[in-house]
């Protein structure tokens, strides 16, 4: 079989698209969350740690006996709390968003492992829970509720940003906080709120991993997905719809490389296939995002009354 027909076979199978939607889900949620933060002018490099915390906290709640949706809520709340920490340091105190974000990632990740080990010191094989089951729908539509929630949230975030007063306020504080303040808005409160909401979405992305995609919490399970979301936000030019397309595109590459690995039958080193989605993402970034018009006040702390 030649190469093209292999690809064609893969692209025509329903199982492939089922995998694409599943793989895309955490990227959709994470990118939406990062997009919300950045639209308000705050870069959130804490995403990797917040996703890890969401994954652990959601799973832990369910493991301790809560139902799945309560686990989702616990994850989102923990994410919002860690987001509050990031916001408190970067918004009213105006600390470097890069450094703070990396700190939040280190904290979120280590804290998650610490709590996990504290509760389960002996576990040699990770204990499991009963995760969300796919809905009984045909073909690629057989997804878990969290995937549906993720794609619904794309529409919700787009509506909020472009059709509501609060969305306009978020965009304004990310473009020109001085202008927002001159219009009587509370820049600090709006930025903190946006970062908390965005962080809650990031934590949902993490919770999807432990409550839908898998049924256990592993160390290193977020595995750089947060960093990909940061790039996807740029790829999407800070627009929710494009963010969803970017996440899907990345998921297509990822699902494709898995199947190509199998199809190649070990002729090529599998690492080459693992690299593929990342290389293609970089290429896509170069092509699409060179002229991206980023929020003008991104990464610039706003201090009231400064001269």
């Amino acid at each position, binding site marked *: 079989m030649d190469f093209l027909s292999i690809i064609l076979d893969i692209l025509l199978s329903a199982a492939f698209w089922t995998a694409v939607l599943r793989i895309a889900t955490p990227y959709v949620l994470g990118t939406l969350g990062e997009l919300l933060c950045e639209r308000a002018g705050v870069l959130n490099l804490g995403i990797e740690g917040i996703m890890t915390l969401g994954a652990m906290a959601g799973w832990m709640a369910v493991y301790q006996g809560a139902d799945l949706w309560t686990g989702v809520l616990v994850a989102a709340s923990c994410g919002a709390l860690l987001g509050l920490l990031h916001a408190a340091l970067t918004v009213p105190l105006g600390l470097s968003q890069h450094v703070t974000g990396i700190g939040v990632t280190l904290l979120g990740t280590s804290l998650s492992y610490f709590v996990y080990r504290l509760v389960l010191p002996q576990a040699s094989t990770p204990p499991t829970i009963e995760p969300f089951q796919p809905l009984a729908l045909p073909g690629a539509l057989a997804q878990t509720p969290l995937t549906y929630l993720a794609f619904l949230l794309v529409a919700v975030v787009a509506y909020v940003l472009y*059709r*509501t*007063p609060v969305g*306009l306020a978020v965009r304004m504080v990310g473009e*020109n906080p001085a*202008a927002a303040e001159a219009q*009587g*808005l509370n820049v600090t409160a709006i930025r903190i709120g946006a970062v908390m909401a965005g962080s809650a979405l990031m934590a949902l992305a993490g919770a999807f991993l432990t409550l839908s995609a898998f049924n256990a919490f592993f160390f290193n399970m977020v595995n750089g997905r947060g960093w990909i979301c940061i790039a996807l936000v740029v790829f999407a030019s800070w627009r929710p719809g494009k963010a969803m397309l970017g996440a899907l595109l990345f998921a297509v590459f990822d699902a494709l490389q898995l199947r190509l690995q199998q199809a190649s039958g070990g002729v090529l080193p599998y690492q080459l296939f693992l690299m593929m989605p990342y290389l293609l993402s970089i290429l896509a970034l170069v092509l699409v995002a060179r002229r991206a018009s980023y929020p*003008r006040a991104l990464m610039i702390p706003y201090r*009231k009354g400064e001269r």
Partner: protein
Amino acid sequence: MSSPVKGGPEVVLRLAGISKRFGPLLANDGISLTLRAGEVLALLGENGAGKTTLMNILFGHYVADEGSIEAFGRPLPPGSPRAALKAGIGMVHQHFTLADNLSVLDNIAVGTESLWRLRSDRGATRRRLLDLSQRFGLEVRPDALVGDLSVGERQRVEILKALYRDARILILDEPTAVLTPQESAGLFETLRRLTADGLAVVFISHKMNEVFAASDTVAVLRAGKLVATHATASTDRAKLAELMVGRSVKPPAPTPLSPGEPVLELAGVTVASDHGRPLLDGVDLTVRRHQVVGIAGVSGNGQTALAELVSGLIRPDSGRLSLKGSVVEHGDPADMVRRGVARIPEDRHSAGLVGAMAVWENLIAERYHDATFSRFGVLRRGAARAYAREVIKEFDVRCPGPDTRTQLLSGGNMQKLILGRTLAHGPDLILASQPTRGLDIGAVSYVHSRLLDARAAGAGVLLISEDLDEILALADCVTVAYHGRLTPLLPHDRVSVSQLGLLMAGHWDILRDILPETVDAA
């Protein structure tokens, strides 16, 4: 228009004993003012006199250390723009507070609706905006991105933003700083319509002619203190200037000199931009010894590219640049300095000086590689400091010594430092971009007289300025930049401010009236 007499229209605003400190600086010192409905109050003063600080306190950007504010008879809570807006106070900031990436409608609507409404009522916002726009003759395009608007249009958006909030007191901070004379006249017309409607207006200015063109009352601030309040009609320029500066100031007058050989020649110079219109489009220009050539124009019409070209920061895409008769092929900044170009950059903070470094380090920044200041790659600090002490004395830079960190100097002293660095070596060509922007009258006249001294000593001066009064006071010839092109050189005594204004707005057909015979620009 009415003058403020007892028993006149209702007092809408009362400031009482406002004081504000920034560290050691007393920016406002016990200022009390009143404003009546229908009145235009001009707040006149030099840069740093405390005008903007006072208005920022009024609008709630800053909190006063002492004093109180009353609007429409009710005390105004301090430190809250929201409270100021609610009390009917609107402010048009000098640096517009608009978001470039958002539409006009979004910029005006933001913050006007309750944040928790589930849907913005854009229809109602649009109707109200168009209604106001018609009523006050302020034309805008609601769906245009603010980033695509001209400066004049942006200002209209700012005024509409205030009116949309039902402002009855409008504060304008240096509203004409970025406008052409015609746009300024349009603004004053708008102000008259607003006051006829009963609004009260405060506008901040340091330009005398505007005070007389637009205000009923003038309040003069100096060094944070209110030194006088007069009905505008009962005072005159000389008196106001003296109040502003605290002493009488004589502007330096250029002595007539006949121009010598050319020092700078541009022939058909074009500089392309990344997108669309070229930054410079077939520019011909000659600057001769003993001559000041003034470039007038609204900023963004090619002046920056011209300055960068002569500084050696960019190169022409086509055309020729010659200095003292020899063509410059691959000019870079160091090469330009060696060829005798003295550069006074547009922004002394970002392009002129390194604030965190010492005065002596900044002074040798252009020639630290000279044998005088370095040997075998090691700086000769003693020589550099000695040289710095000389320049500090010669150019009257007020600072404790050569080791002072440069950012601690005032704007005027920073500019003197730059003058000292560039003029101490007898340059052939001086590129002066906005050389007096943000300086007080005393420093302005110092800079002007230094430039005229250099002209007398044989230098050619290329003066780029948005201040038409400055250009007409110094320049022997004027040219106007518009969309990357330059008019032929116009002798300064044959062109008026209003003609310059028309040329700045692109009405080049009037060149026929100014120059009936074709003047050879080259």
